[in-house]
């Protein structure tokens, strides 16, 4: 094993002086249908184990599958969004293998007649566009979930036996396979990540899946190979399985580039193998040797008749596609008057959707951006959570900006209001009321505070009257302090001027 797991990794910069990477991605998306692919069982996530099964998805003898129309439609729409050719004739095939999470002894998938072929997706990294060719988009079914008992928890190693939950077995799964992606050089890890990010956004925009990587509704297998610079042939690739976050996609490619370079440098040979990614260390380790495609003994599924998407129906689906993320970014950038860099910041901060929703809820684009990229990004960072997981909704942020705009609160009070919202005290308006955060008007309390400040600093008053108007700032500060920031600074200044200068 010393040849596959070297002691030392090669620095990425160094890797690129001698080798060129080629990457490829296989992405599985669990479709957001109500029922399974070939039976009526519910697909609700998190249900009690084995409560969503039936003779079809358990593979009991005599049961017959019927394909889910919505799943077929989602798959075609994903294909269309990726610029694919939609097959006029497509079939399911049996992929035969024995594993406890696959009750039928085969997975119903597609083989040589997938629904969609030959598409592409352009992704941008650091201002440069990379075209990712899509080889195919096909429809299949998910497997059950194994729980390995005994030995190390959750891993197969040392397990005595396994426990299987078939709730997930038969949930429609779309597999999107890229062609090998050469020419990305040092950007290979980022291109891989950008591709999955963009794909996720497209599927989300289509409403085809909730694409939650942490729940496994979007999973990636990442292929990586290295070839000596200038070589006409590509190197042997490894396939890193089940990489389950965007960050991990990037890390998996980076690790494999560094590991393979070390193996090749030492005169070794990269094995064509499946590898597992380890979130904790960011490394990969060898998995079971991949059974060759022919080992799956694919053959056309006799229990399901062919799909023959009607050209007119496909055209209707194409016409009905929503605005896709790339087009939307171009439009918003123009509408909001942003530079390309500003737009890239928004996208990289995963804030585009949040800002869009905040603007839709009535905030100005500038204010919405300011809050999400500033105060809220800071808080998410401090709390170690994703921006979108903060306990504040775009609608609440819009309400906050409205309260600032109409003078009810100032920026400092707005931050305190946000504390309350994040603490679950309700909407901004409720928090302002409950915590008494509204900016003071020209109330008796404020008049008293202003007069006390004047009375308490006769020397300052003298200076101001002597022409040093800037000295007034000290009095403003004193009033803000006694009112604990609740007064409006401009109002305070005007009231002070009226009494000190204007009288």
């Amino acid at each position: 094993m010393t040849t596959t797991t070297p002691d030392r990794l090669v620095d990425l910069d160094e890797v690129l002086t001698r080798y060129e990477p080629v990457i490829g991605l296989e992405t599985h998306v669990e479709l957001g249908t109500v029922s399974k692919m070939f039976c009526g069982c519910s697909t609700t996530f998190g249900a009690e184990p084995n409560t969503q099964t039936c003779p079809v998805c358990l593979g009991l003898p005599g049961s017959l599958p019927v394909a889910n129309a919505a799943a077929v439609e989602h798959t075609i729409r994903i294909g269309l969004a990726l610029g694919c050719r939609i097959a006029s004739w497509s079939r399911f095939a049996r992929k035969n293998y024995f594993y406890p999470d696959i009750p039928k002894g085969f997975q119903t998938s597609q083989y040589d007649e997938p629904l969609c072929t030959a598409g592409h997706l352009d992704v941008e990294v650091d201002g440069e566009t990379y075209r990712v060719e899509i080889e195919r988009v096909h429809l299949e079914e998910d497997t059950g979930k194994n729980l390995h008992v005994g030995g190390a928890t959750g891993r197969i190693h040392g397990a005595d036996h396994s426990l299987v939950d078939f709730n997930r077995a038969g949930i429609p799964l779309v597999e999107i396979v890229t062609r090998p992606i050469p020419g990305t050089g040092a950007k290979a890890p980022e291109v891989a990540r950008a591709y999955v990010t963009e794909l996720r956004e497209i599927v989300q925009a289509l409403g085809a899946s909730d694409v939650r990587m942490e729940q496994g509704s979007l999973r990636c297998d990442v292929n990586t190979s290295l070839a000596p610079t200038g070589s006409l042939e590509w190197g042997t690739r490894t396939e890193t399985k089940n990489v389950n976050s965007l960050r991990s996609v990037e890390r998996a490619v980076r690790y494999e580039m560094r590991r393979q370079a070390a193996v090749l440098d030492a005169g070794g040979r990269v094995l064509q193998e499946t590898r597992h990614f380890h979130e904790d260390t960011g490394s990969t380790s060898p998995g079971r040797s991949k059974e060759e495609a022919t080992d799956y003994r694919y053959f056309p599924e006799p229990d399901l008749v062919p799909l023959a998407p009607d050209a007119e129906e496909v055209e209707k689906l194409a016409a009905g596609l929503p605005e896709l993320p790339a087009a939307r970014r171009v439009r918003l950038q123009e509408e909001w008057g942003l530079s390309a860099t500003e737009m890239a910041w928004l996208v990289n901060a995963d804030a585009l959707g949040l800002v869009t929703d905040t603007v839709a809820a009535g905030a100005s684009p500038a204010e919405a951006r300011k809050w999400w990229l500033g105060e809220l990004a800071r808080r998410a960072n401090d709390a170690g959570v994703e921006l979108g997981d903060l306990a504040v909704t775009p609608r609440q942020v819009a309400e906050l900006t409205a309260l600032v705009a109409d003078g009810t609160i100032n920026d400092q009070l707005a931050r305190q209001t946000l504390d309350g919202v994040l603490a679950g005290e309700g909407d901004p308006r409720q928090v302002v009321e409950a915590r008494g955060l509204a900016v003071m008007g020209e109330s008796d309390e404020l008049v008293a505070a202003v007069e006390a400040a004047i009375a308490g600093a006769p020397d300052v008053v003298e200076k101001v009257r002597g022409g040093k108007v800037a000295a007034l700032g000290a009095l403003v500060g004193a009033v803000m302090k006694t009112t604990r920031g609740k007064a409006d600074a401009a109002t305070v200044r005007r009231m002070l001027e009226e009494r000190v200068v204007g009288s």
Partner: protein
Amino acid sequence: MSTPSANEALGRDEIAHLARLSRLALTEEELDRFAGQLGAVLDAVAQVGKADVGDVAPTTHAVPLTNVLRADVATPSLPRDVVLAAAPAAEDDRFRVPRILGEE
């Protein structure tokens, strides 16, 4: 798809490989016996190859049907106790299966 063409003898190695894929433990004697038997079966099936099918499209379905689909509607599943009662072993509301051999 991996079935060797009939004019190619089915070797012991291939039988062993297929047995492994099928999770079947075969003895040496069985490998020899099945290699012979399966060879005979393939020879018999190979006679189909004599038919002139030059302009016949491959047929996988005898009925000229396409697009048999169901609406995406959830229907009741089986009760769990019924499902698990049919399993050889169950534990923690799940199917209990033997440890998977040959894994890392």
